């Protein structure tokens, strides 16, 4: 005869919350949550109370008031009669401009330096080591100021061009002055739209041709001279269209007039200094990431590719890089984010980014520190999240696909 004894039904005791492992983690989480909520509410009430004590309210209306100050570098229409909101927008575009330019240049620089650092040539690899260690280990701010100082102190003033002490470079098309670099600017005339359409069409043509070439290779093994044909598709139709339409795009050359150069495109010292410094600084980090990525692919892969008869260029492009990219891209994302956020050091050289317009002059003129800083934080947060979303999308497209 067997007797089945029911398990003794336990009554819940309060001490179980601490001593019973089934409940303990819940207790800890609940307590932590309560503490966080308490701290948050303290912060909010403290802020509200202190704003009240200062007699200030919380209001974003200042964004619609007249700004009253001028900005030198404007990508959109803006003058001193525009609103603070528009000034912020001008600043945002300036931030995005320098961040974009910086990311592109830093990536190119980084890939070159990273690959060359692995060169078997002693001199080349040492030179790259000096570049990487030199730029990586000195604060970015110093580089920005150094580049700026070189541009303002060592370059000739516009007046020197009049007296013949200085001359324009590249067949009188580029003027390097202590106020920035003046380069020819493209001017669009009638028919420029057609030319741009032709350009886009030829780009689409190249893409379609490459797809075709790839499929052909997959199916028959025949390899087409992709590079030459792509170049022809790019150049020929555009050249023909350019002359047929009667040169719809011309260049506006900078000329000395009054105090400064007039015409052309003015790349200000502040932009150049910030752009170069951000690029070489972040480029040094990217170089290390690229080097690590390439080294992470085992030597056996190269040897196997060689054994199959692939040439070194193809080996790099088809075997090593796809595997190295998997290692390279995730840390590359954080470098892009760093570069974007570091661009806020623009204030050191008077580059009018969003930190200088919204976070600087606007806050100073309106006294809206809290609102301005929240907006500024919100902008950088949004920009960073968008960049990482785009890069994560790219990362997903190149990562190991298991079948």
């Amino acid at each position, binding site marked *: 005869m067997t007797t089945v004894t029911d398990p003794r039904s336990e009554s819940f005791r309060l001490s179980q919350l601490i001593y019973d492992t089934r409940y303990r983690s819940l207790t800890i989480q609940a307590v932590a949550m309560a503490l966080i909520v308490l701290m948050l509410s303290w912060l909010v009430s403290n802020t509200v109370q202190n704003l009240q004590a200062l007699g200030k309210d919380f209001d974003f209306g200042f964004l619609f008031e007249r700004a009253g100050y001028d900005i030198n570098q404007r990508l959109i229409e803006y003058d001193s009669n525009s609103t603070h909101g528009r000034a912020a927008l001008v600043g945002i575009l300036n931030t995005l401009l320098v961040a974009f330019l910086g990311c592109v240049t830093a990536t190119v620089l980084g890939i070159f330096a990273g690959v060359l650092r692995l060169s078997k040539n002693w001199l080349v690899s040492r030179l790259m080591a000096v570049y990487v260690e030199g730029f990586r280990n000195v604060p970015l701010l110093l580089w920005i100021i150094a580049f700026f100082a070189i541009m303002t*102190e060592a370059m000739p003033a516009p*007046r020197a061009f009049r007296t013949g002490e200085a001359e324009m470079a590249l067949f009188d098309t580029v003027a390097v002055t202590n106020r920035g670099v003046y380069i020819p600017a493209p001017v669009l005339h009638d028919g420029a739209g057609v030319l741009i359409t032709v350009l886009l069409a030829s780009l689409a043509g190249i893409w379609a041709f490459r797809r075709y070439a790839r499929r052909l290779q997959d199916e028959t093994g025949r390899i087409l001279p992709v590079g030459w044909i792509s170049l022809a598709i790019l150049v020929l139709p555009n050249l023909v269209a350019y002359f047929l339409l009667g040169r719809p795009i011309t260049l506006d050359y900078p000329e000395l007039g*009054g105090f400064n150069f007039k015409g052309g495109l003015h790349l200000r010292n502040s932009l150049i200094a910030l752009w170069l410094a951000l690029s070489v600084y972040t480029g040094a980090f990217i170089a290390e990431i690229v080097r690590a990525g390439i080294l992470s692919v085992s030597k056996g892969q190269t040897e196997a590719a060689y054994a199959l008869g692939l040439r070194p260029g193809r080996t790099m492009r088809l075997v090593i890089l796809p595997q190295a990219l998997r290692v390279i891209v995730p840390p590359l994302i954080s470098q892009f984010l760093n570069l974007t956020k570091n661009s806020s050091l623009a204030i050191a050289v008077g580059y009018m980014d969003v930190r200088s317009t919204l976070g600087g002059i606007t806050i100073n003129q309106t006294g809206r520190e*809290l609102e301005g800083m929240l907006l500024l934080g919100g902008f950088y947060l949004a920009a960073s999240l968008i960049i990482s979303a785009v890069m994560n999308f790219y990362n997903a497209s190149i990562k190991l696909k298991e079948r």
Partner: protein
Amino acid sequence: MKTTALLGALTVAGLSAGAAAAATLDDVKARGHLNCGVTTGLAGFAAPNANGVWEGFDVAVCRAVAAAIFGDPMAVEFTPTTGQTRFTALASGEVDMLARNTTWTFTRDVDLKFDFVGINYYDGQGFMVPKSLGVSSAKELDGATVCIQTGTTTELNLADFFRANNMAYEPVPIETNAEAQQQFLAGACDVYTTDASGLAATRATFENPQDYVILPEIISKEPLGPLVRHGDNEWGDLVRWVLNALIAAEELGITSANIDELAKGTSNPEINRILGVEGNLGEMLGLSKDWAINAIKANGNYGEIFAKYIGENTPIGLARGLNAQWKDGGLLYSPPFR
């Protein structure tokens, strides 16, 4: 992520605002020294001397306030502020007062919640150019590159001036006077514009001051004065009357040389009231009887301070002009000590 950012912003705001409570005088007394916001360095107005001790026309106001409270003009800690950081520094309580050639304007007084306690220098915005530029009037500056300190009234005046005269210009924004000087001397800008006194002070530090001219146009009114936070009227009164004491002392002939003599008592009741021989003005301010004696002893009366740091016998060489006593045709006029 999002909440962390918000949290951080609120913490900063909360902590900084927390310090800005009332009863500044009690805080200052408990701390043992005055926190005074000054420029990052403008010769004659506020700059450290060869021994690293801050001195100058604006610094003297801070020293006088410290002397009035503690009897010791050296009981001041100076916080160098830029055009952009000064108001945040004052509003957050990082400094107790600003003496930093700051222009008294409606919005700063009303909207930014500060109290200007008076005017210690009547100024106006001017332009400085190299002589070699061959410019004799600001109206000829169409297309010029202009160095300008950001976050100042001069920045707004500049925009208005060029707009009103239908001229174009290229602003080069800079943070501090030292940066502006470097840019201007390197020729990165044709023109440097700021308050005329600042231009004179900056020019005085150049290697070849005679190669630069200050253009005749004064394009704005820039009444410069010390300011305090809104909301603590007792503290505002204290700073205001220390400044008035310096001005009144010059009017009444109280100097650092004869003050000990006059403090023994004179036949002029107003001098007696200022110096604490009669009445209890000091007590009303929450200070000792000899508050004004200490304040005036610190660097002398207004006229002495002016002559010592920025007057005609200094490299800066500013004439009294509007900053003379009302009796001498200027605008300085202290309300009566009664």
